[in-house]
């Protein structure tokens, strides 16, 4: 195994080694490209997480309300996005839906991937939020209603604060999963880390170095989320509440 870590300092068009490893004046080194790809990965993951948290929480809450129709809506959403593999969902968004709904053709693949990944993860988050709410004693809901709060107010002030604190660990896993799942975006031409690894590995014939570097960046991204969520978990902890130490 002969390693050539200097490959990251090579310019992507001419192949020359550039001092300082960062290109300037139009030159792009493989290191620049990798960092740009990392940026795409983080962007896809972050936006998809926002979409997933919003829709997932909404659908999870809907599955616990007394109204049967809203429960059916939440269940339908969750089952639809849970039962189809992620890669198939991405292809559906990219190839099939634009044939059926022509306005979707104008959207860049980045947006379609954010929706696909976001909705896929939202189904899992919906299940976790539902589990969190249903793990609370029934008495909490009735106490809230008995005190005079409306149902939305009971959710907002009594149920959800406790439920979300309970499900922070599974939500951490889902956030980390989104970073890892973003790698399937390469299949629909988003210039993220996995595509960088494949393309740069092919161009330079240094697949080991490329894949190791990309692995490190994925690990760092997922681990950062892990640590951030740990800080969040400690800061929002309320003594005496469910889930507190």
């Amino acid at each position, binding site marked *: 195994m002969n390693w050539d870590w200097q490959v990251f300092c090579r310019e992507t068009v001419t192949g020359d080694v550039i001092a300082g490893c960062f290109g300037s004046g139009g030159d792009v080194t493989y290191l620049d490209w990798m960092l740009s790809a990392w940026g795409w990965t983080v962007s896809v993951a972050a936006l998809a997480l926002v979409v997933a948290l919003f829709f997932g929480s909404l659908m999870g809450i809907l599955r616990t309300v007394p109204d049967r129709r809203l429960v059916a809506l939440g269940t339908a959403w969750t089952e639809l996005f849970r039962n189809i593999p992620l890669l198939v969902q991405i292809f559906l968004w990219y190839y099939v839906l634009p044939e059926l709904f022509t306005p979707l053709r104008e959207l860049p693949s980045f947006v379609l991937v954010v929706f696909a990944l976001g909705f896929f993860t939202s189904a899992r988050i919906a299940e976790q939020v539902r589990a969190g709410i249903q793990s609370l004693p029934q008495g909490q809901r009735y106490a809230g209603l008995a005190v005079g709060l409306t149902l939305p107010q009971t959710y907002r002030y009594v149920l959800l604060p406790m439920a979300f604190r309970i499900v922070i660990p599974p939500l951490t896993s889902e956030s980390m999963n989104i970073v890892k799942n973003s790698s399937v975006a390469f299949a629909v031409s988003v210039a993220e880390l996995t595509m960088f690894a*494949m393309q740069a590995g092919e161009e330079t014939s240094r697949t080991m170095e490329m894949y190791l570097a990309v692995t490190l960046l994925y690990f760092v991204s997922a681990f950062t989320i892990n640590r951030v969520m740990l800080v969040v978990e400690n800061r929002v902890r309320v003594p005496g509440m469910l889930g507190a130490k």
Partner: protein
Amino acid sequence: MKTTMKTTMKLSALFAALTTALLVAPTAQAADTLAKIKASGSATMGVRESSRPLSFTLGGEKYAGFHVELCTRVLADVQKALGLPKLDIKYQAVTSQNRIPLVQNGTVDIECGSTTNTTPRQRDVDFAVTTYVEEVRIATRVDTGITGIAQLTGKNVSTTTGTTSVQLLRKHERANGVEFREIFGKDHADSFLLMATGRADAFVMDGALLAGLISSAKNPADFRIVGEVLSVEPIAIMLPKGDPAFKKMVDDSLIAMMKSGEMAKVYDKWFNQPIPPNNTKVGLPLAEATKAAWAAPNDRPVEAYVKQ
């Protein structure tokens, strides 16, 4: 059971040691493919699944193509030279990403797909004499009216991840100060689909692959190959590095075919006659560059060719 500080430190030290060992491991030994073939009575041929007409699958573990046929003949010559009563040929499907690692680690003895001979790749594998010179062209739908690379400015251009065409487009953009939006398909069929469905206006790839994909499309008349030759690339059979005896045998076999006219006949069979799976013709006449490569057999990489 709480993990103590000492255990964590021990685990970290072990992890660090493993990583260091992996990173400074010694280099691999040179291959001796002929001895391996003689001992096992079998040879593994690396093949592609959808690089029609060079190497493609007919379904059910059967492979065919220009390079597959050349390799079959080469292996028949190897069998004769080694004096083996029979030689069992195993087929191993490879992709753009894993073809070189599989040759390097000996899983594949001879790779017969559509690999460009380049200087970076020559660090890891050896190439036989060039059997086909590829010209990178543009395929478009007829209704886009595109006739050359100059009209691609600002348009969507598709190409396949992990191929030399990606770098070629980048070089062209840089050299001529143009900008086009690149869309990457995960394989050739995918990139063609991007162009056929309208997500991309043009598909840049090796002319043979373009012709193969167009000829097996639902309506071939809707597509055409246009424009100037963007790059000339020697396509060659890949061999394990550092095995001069095997390379000489393969080269001699191929050169004999070139000199006797067999090579031209095999070319005609795969490029200009109806071929499986649906008996359509690819229709690519013999290029001057390929004829020149056969007249003067060599294993020069693409960097040694002058861009036209």
